[in-house]
């Protein structure tokens, strides 16, 4: 039977709860359990950085097994960056280790008076002094804690200086370079005075039907290994996207001003891999291995040896800032990892500052003498470190683009590219309508990971017909129309929600998916012994329940339809060039459809009473 480990930092106590079995059929695990627990235990309106907030590390029912790409973990909390629902998934090896130590979830409550770290070695759970680790970069802290415990196999999740100083978009770093990046989980840990969590487990994870599960898992691995797209992903990682994005005119450039970048080639996989990549690596139990370790031999950043960045990092410290030099993005990634910051938000916040400066809305008095300009690598790297240290102008930018714009005023808000406070990731609704809707409605803000429909963007007619019905063709795969997009977004959001509940990596359900809901329905009963999980309809309802629960969480914080919006740049300013030239997003019709399909009220965007009843969410009323 599963266990929830609770560490209360305020009274320095550790307790173990049984996993509520009555939750399983409705929520499965992972993200779903965390959502329910957070809704019940963190009341509406509390400050994300107060001791009342909790941070949950959750695993899924198949974490620690041989199912492909199932080694991921989720950090859940009321987000420091946005003040709404916060979740951040991370690869690496942390989650399985927690499972092997005997726990399905770790809940960190309260706040410590002085810096501490949490050490979990099977049954031994300790809150230990971290004075000597405070101030360390994430990699230093990770190694120091392993050394302290004389165990190189301990898995450590650490925050860096940015998390300690509560930079709004600070991250938690696992295995040196895997980041629970978005929504500011580092700041939540920092506010609790927790430098790190070290986990070592020697136990076992078992499934209900071992032999059948193994048989299926082996076939699943075989599918990953023979899938042509997966093989490409293994070779190039997400770098494969740069060229695709450039071709369809959706490579965010100059703070999302345009979708075409002249210097894209220097940021493409074809360019990077032969010149810089020294090693391919994988997360726990993954056949694909998309992580690339890269090394810079010459130039100002010679000697940089670091994993990444992913496409999002190439975008946010490349095209978004007018930089075509790959080593700069690698250096930026290294700084983000060591200081513990989200690379997407960091790049987007700097882009905001540069554009505001360019437009004359801020001057050197505000920037502390920096003459901000596009494409200035040296200056951008310097500014990034200043953010990590919260020094000078970096202190202002550490609030994120929304926070900084509010602080500065002067009309700079128009250049802050965010939804609900979370900076927009490397997509553009103008050239891909469904992602516009997903950015606007995502539970944690402008997010490409809650629902990124690729079938429409890449024009997979067969998949579209099979999944959404041939009657919706051709509009549903036309990226430039709003029609039917909500249907695609909802279906994909549900599948992704299951992905985050299991928890599996998103590359196993990405373009075109290797696994989809029916595959999970085949596997879950073997893993859990619960036959009702074999029904795809039932799984979809579970997903719907979770999406609506997260919406209710946000509604409690005051989110309504008005907040499901995009910056004017996407809805009012036509794409200036490229294949999508002249396109804008017309959000309202898509939102109407989306709310209707979700069973939420079209006026307010809030779940209707019938929906709450139907999804068995009436218990939420008790916690409003």
């Amino acid at each position: 039977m599963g266990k929830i480990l609770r560490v209360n930092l305020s009274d320095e106590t550790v307790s173990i709860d049984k996993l509520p079995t009555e939750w399983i059929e409705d929520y499965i695990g992972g993200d779903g359990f965390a959502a329910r627990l957070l809704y019940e235990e963190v009341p509406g309106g509390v400050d994300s950085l107060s001791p009342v907030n909790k941070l949950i590390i959750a695993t899924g029912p198949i974490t620690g097994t041989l199912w492909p790409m199932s080694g991921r973990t989720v950090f859940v909390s009321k987000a420091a960056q946005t003040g709404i629902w916060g979740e951040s998934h991370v690869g690496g090896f942390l989650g399985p280790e927690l499972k092997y130590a005997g726990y399905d979830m770790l809940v960190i409550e309260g706040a410590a008076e002085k810096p501490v770290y949490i050490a979990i070695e099977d049954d031994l759970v300790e809150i230990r002094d971290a004075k000597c680790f405070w101030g360390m970069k994430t990699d230093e802290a990770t190694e120091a804690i392993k050394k302290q415990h004389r165990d190189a196999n301990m898995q450590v999740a650490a925050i860096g200086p940015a998390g300690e100083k509560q930079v709004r978009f600070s991250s938690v770093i696992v295995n040196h370079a895997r980041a629970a990046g978005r929504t500011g989980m580092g700041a939540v840990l920092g506010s609790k005075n927790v430098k790190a969590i070290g986990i070592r487990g020697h136990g076992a994870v078992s499934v209900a039907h071992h032999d059948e599960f193994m048989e299926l898992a082996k076939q699943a691995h075989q599918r990953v290994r023979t899938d042509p797209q997966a093989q490409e992903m293994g070779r190039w990682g997400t770098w494969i996207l740069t060229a695709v994005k450039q071709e369809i005119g959706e490579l965010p450039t100059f703070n999302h001003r345009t979708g075409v970048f002249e210097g894209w080639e220097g940021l493409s996989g074809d360019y990077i891999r032969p010149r810089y990549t020294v090693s391919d690596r994988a997360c726990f139990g993954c056949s694909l291995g998309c992580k690339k370790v890269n090394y810079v031999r010459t130039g100002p950043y010679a000697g940089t040896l670091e994993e990444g960045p992913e496409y999002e990092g190439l975008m946010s410290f490349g095209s978004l800032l007018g930089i075509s030099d790959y080593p700069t993005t690698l250096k930026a990634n290294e700084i983000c990892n060591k200081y513990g910051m989200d690379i997407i938000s960091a790049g987007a916040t700097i882009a905001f500052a540069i554009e505001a400066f360019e437009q004359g809305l801020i001057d050197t008095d505000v920037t502390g003498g920096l003459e901000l300009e596009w494409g200035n690598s040296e200056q951008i790297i310097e500014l990034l470190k200043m953010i990590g240290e919260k020094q000078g102008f970096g202190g202002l930018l550490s609030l994120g683009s929304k926070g900084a714009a509010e602080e500065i005023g002067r009309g700079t808000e128009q250049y802050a590219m965010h939804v609900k406070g979370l900076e927009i990731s490397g997509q553009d609704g103008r050239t891909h309508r469904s992602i516009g809707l997903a950015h606007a409605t995502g539970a944690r803000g402008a997010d490409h990971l809650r629902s990124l429909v690729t079938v429409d963007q890449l024009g997979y007619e067969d998949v579209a017909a099979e999944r959404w019905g041939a009657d919706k063709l051709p509009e549903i795969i036309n990226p430039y129309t709003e029609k039917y997009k909500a249907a695609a977004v909802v279906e994909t959001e549900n599948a992704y929600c299951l992905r985050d509940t299991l928890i599996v990596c998103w590359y196993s359900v990405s373009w075109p998916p290797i696994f989809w809901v029916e595959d999970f329905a085949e596997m879950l009963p073997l893993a859990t012994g619960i036959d009702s999980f074999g029904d795809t309809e039932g799984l979809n309802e579970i997903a719907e329940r979770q999406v609506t629960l997260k919406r209710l969480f946000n509604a409690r914080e005051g989110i309504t339809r008005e907040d499901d919006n995009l910056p004017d740049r996407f809805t009012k300013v036509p794409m200036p060039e490229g294949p999508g030239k002249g396109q804008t997003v017309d959000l309202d019709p898509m939102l109407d459809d989306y709310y209707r399909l979700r069973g939420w009220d079209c006026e307010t965007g809030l779940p209707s009473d019938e929906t709450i009843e139907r999804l068995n969410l009436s218990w939420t009323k008790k916690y409003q």
Partner: protein
Amino acid sequence: MPYMPKQLIVDYTKCTGCRICELACSAKKEGVFQPSLARLKIVKYDDLGVDVPNVCGPCEEAPCVDVCPVYAMRRDPITKMVYLDEDKCILCKSCVGACVNGVIQLDTISMHIIKCDHCDGDPECVKMCPTGAITYGTPAQSAVVDRHEKMEKYLSEIRRTAEAQ
């Protein structure tokens, strides 16, 4: 299958550190997913981006055989595979300490010595390795002789750049 010496051959340059081998090994041998009881171990260097699979053998001399006080650890003269006769084992852990690859261990729950047996000539780790970093073949098929080639390359490159700066 011809009866001849075979060994687990490791190519460090191909290992991605995914630990599927550890999972597959424990799933086959223990019936659960428990990397701590796997008969092999991926040693990870996150700072360098290097992963090194440590497997049983190949050993020219087998210290685990030499050290065993009761001759429970024995070596097949033809296949060169070292195997443990559990009936004779007195759990003294001498082999655990003697193993140069650190892949023999004592399971303190079941009180058994855990030791790779190459799955009787059909190793599960080899079948499940996604990149071919672990293969099974005759000594002549072993292409990678230098155990630490991959890391040596890195370190010398880092030293070279440091000097150039």
